[in-house]
């Protein structure tokens, strides 16, 4: 079995930032270029590219270069994807119960 350890899944990291959640919300209403997104969220092009790259890495967004414009749309891994939901919570639960097991072993015989 895979050891998940403390490393959080890509999607969790991607979604931990309010700007990135905003980007997904915006793209849910229609495709947009990186420039449009940067304007919309009041940040530099470089800053927006970083956010988009993280979302792309997690499969939440895809981008395509059309001429000189990089167009963004929601990726194949949708937030309503059941497999994703199950995977996230399974990992969380397993990791926490593993830690609880370790904690109980570590403190065995040490009643308060």
């Amino acid at each position, binding site marked *: 079995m895979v050891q998940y350890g403390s490393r959080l899944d890509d999607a969790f990291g991607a*979604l931990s930032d309010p700007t990135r959640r905003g980007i997904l919300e915006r793209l849910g209403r229609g495709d947009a270029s990186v420039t449009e997104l940067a304007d919309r969220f009041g940040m530099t092009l470089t800053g927006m590219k970083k956010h988009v790259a993280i979302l792309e890495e997690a499969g939440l967004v895809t981008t395509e270069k059309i001429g000189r414009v990089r167009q963004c749309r929601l990726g194949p891994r949708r937030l309503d994807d059941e497999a994703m939901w199950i995977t996230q919570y399974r990992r969380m639960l397993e990791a926490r119960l*593993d830690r609880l097991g370790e904690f109980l072993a570590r403190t065995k015989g040490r009643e308060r």
Partner: protein
Amino acid sequence: MSKSKVTKQGDREIRVERVFDAPRERVWSAMTESKLIAQWWGRGHKLVVESNDVKPGGKWRFVEHAPEGVFGFEGRFREVKAPERLVLTFGWDGMPGHGHGRELRRSRPVAGGVEWRCARAGRRLREGRRRAEWARAGASCGRESTAARARRPADDLRAREDRR
């Protein structure tokens, strides 16, 4: 190596079973006392227990400080029956309109310790509603909307679990 047994129940529910080599009461304390929760719940990360009012209707909020970011989880306790049964709602700030639902934990003594069975069920949202929750969370970081949602539990999970 994880020692949990994981099963999937339908498309919105998972069940994780795990046997702990410890008295039932000790596991209960570890799951319910703030000082002890802080030592394992954060999966090795710093954990801040902002609230942990272990009684029916009581609120809990734990914030995990991971290198990748700060992750807030919260919900309310629904049923509290030491040392065997804990029902709570949960939500994650980062997944508004999605990562929330109900968690049921039950313990029973078995050979070698106590078995805890955790089941989690999510709630399916209509597309429009999901978008609305995303939009709201974008503005508020999800905190208020998570609290509001926690009052709408996935009751079918409990009904199904109780029949087992």
